[in-house]
């Protein structure tokens, strides 16, 4: 498990109060973890803070799975 995924899981656990075991790259925020759009926004803000990156609002609004959030982190770090 890479460091980015670990940190992302920690943000998700903190925001949603779910068990870390429930989270895989295929997990969807809304259907699997019971999140709503505000929760997802909170996770995106957590990502921005933790990784010191800025996520474009249009990109952020398309994130539905943990894998997509991970991809977003990796792209933002590469930029």
């Amino acid at each position: 498990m890479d460091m980015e995924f670990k940190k992302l899981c920690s943000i998700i656990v903190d925001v949603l109060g779910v068990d870390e075991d429930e989270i895989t790259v295929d997990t969807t925020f809304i259907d699997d973890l019971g999140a709503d759009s505000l929760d997802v926004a909170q996770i995106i803000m957590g990502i921005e803070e933790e990784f010191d990156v800025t996520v474009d609002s249009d990109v952020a609004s398309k994130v539905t799975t943990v894998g997509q959030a991970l991809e977003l982190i990796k792209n933002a770090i590469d930029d």
Partner: protein
Amino acid sequence: MSKKYVKVAVDAMGGDLAPAEPVKGAVQALEKRKSLHVTLVGKEEVIRAELEKYKYDEERVEILDAREVIEMAEPPVNAIRRKKDSSIVKGLKLVKEGTCDAFVTAGSTGATLAGGQLLVGRIRGIERPPLAPLMPTAKGPVLLVDCGANMDARASQLVQFAQMGSIYMRNMTGIENPRVALVNVGAEEEKGNALVKEVFPLLKECEGINFIGNIEARDIPAGDADVVVCDAFVGNVILKLYEGLASTLIHKIKDALMTSLRSKIGALMIKPALKGMLKEFDISSYGGAPMLGLRGLVVKTHGNAEAVEIKNAIEQCFVFKKKDINGQFVEKMGLEQNGKAAGQKAAQEEKAAQEEKASPEVKAAQEEKSQAPAAEERSADQ
């Protein structure tokens, strides 16, 4: 600062009457509460110019410079994410960091609701923080939970609204055993939509609240309950209808009283009585609408709040902190002990109870189903 102060951040740029009224309200609150400290958030030079109009204890006032203002029409989540130098974002961050205990704003409701959750965050175990204004009734104020934060609430969330509303009312208005009611289209338990039918038994079983059953909207102004529970869609409709109807009626009465000389003389005679009655219906004395269940207190006042409402909202924060109402939420709702919220626990228990009550035929079918794989395994062994 050796003395233990209650620290309240005030949005000096929020609302139609900013910065004059928020600053004036803050000064009035400082005058009244000697262990209060206020941080005014907004454009420093503008705040200083306002403060120069008053005498106040400078030791208990700070200014946090914020150059941006979130406008009412801006999309809330985007504004919170992008306007990091705004008075709302900076004020909420003071609460998040623990520098202040509470934040008061007359600014954008949407940004305040989004920012409360995004920046301050929920108490662990609280599923959703509701916005809970007090409304006037014939028998004193009623707390409407939720009126704006959660349009599609779940049953377990409404249970938490009832619990938090009950604790809040007990502490803030002194009602010993607040009557909690669920908004419905009839008094009978079997009435309503799927959500209220699911919530009713959970509230009936919920410990620590005085649940009196369903309430119809027409009985709210009569004061038949102290805490009225609903999702934000219903709550917002109730609140707006309440405000609109009250305003229309007052205008109609005024028009009627001005129609003839006789009615004008009559108006003069009843004026003191009418004024007294309207004062009873003035809820600005209770401050603003709190967002309950956050890791600090966030209070939203009316957009056109005058100094007195801001002052009362600051005092509301003072009492909230002094009475440790967040601590009471945690303790009385069993939030830390259970990890999951009491509402969720209640929902799980209810589900288990329903399974227990299932008819013998359903039970037999369930047992048969659960035994089927075992039977298949046995036959495979043979």
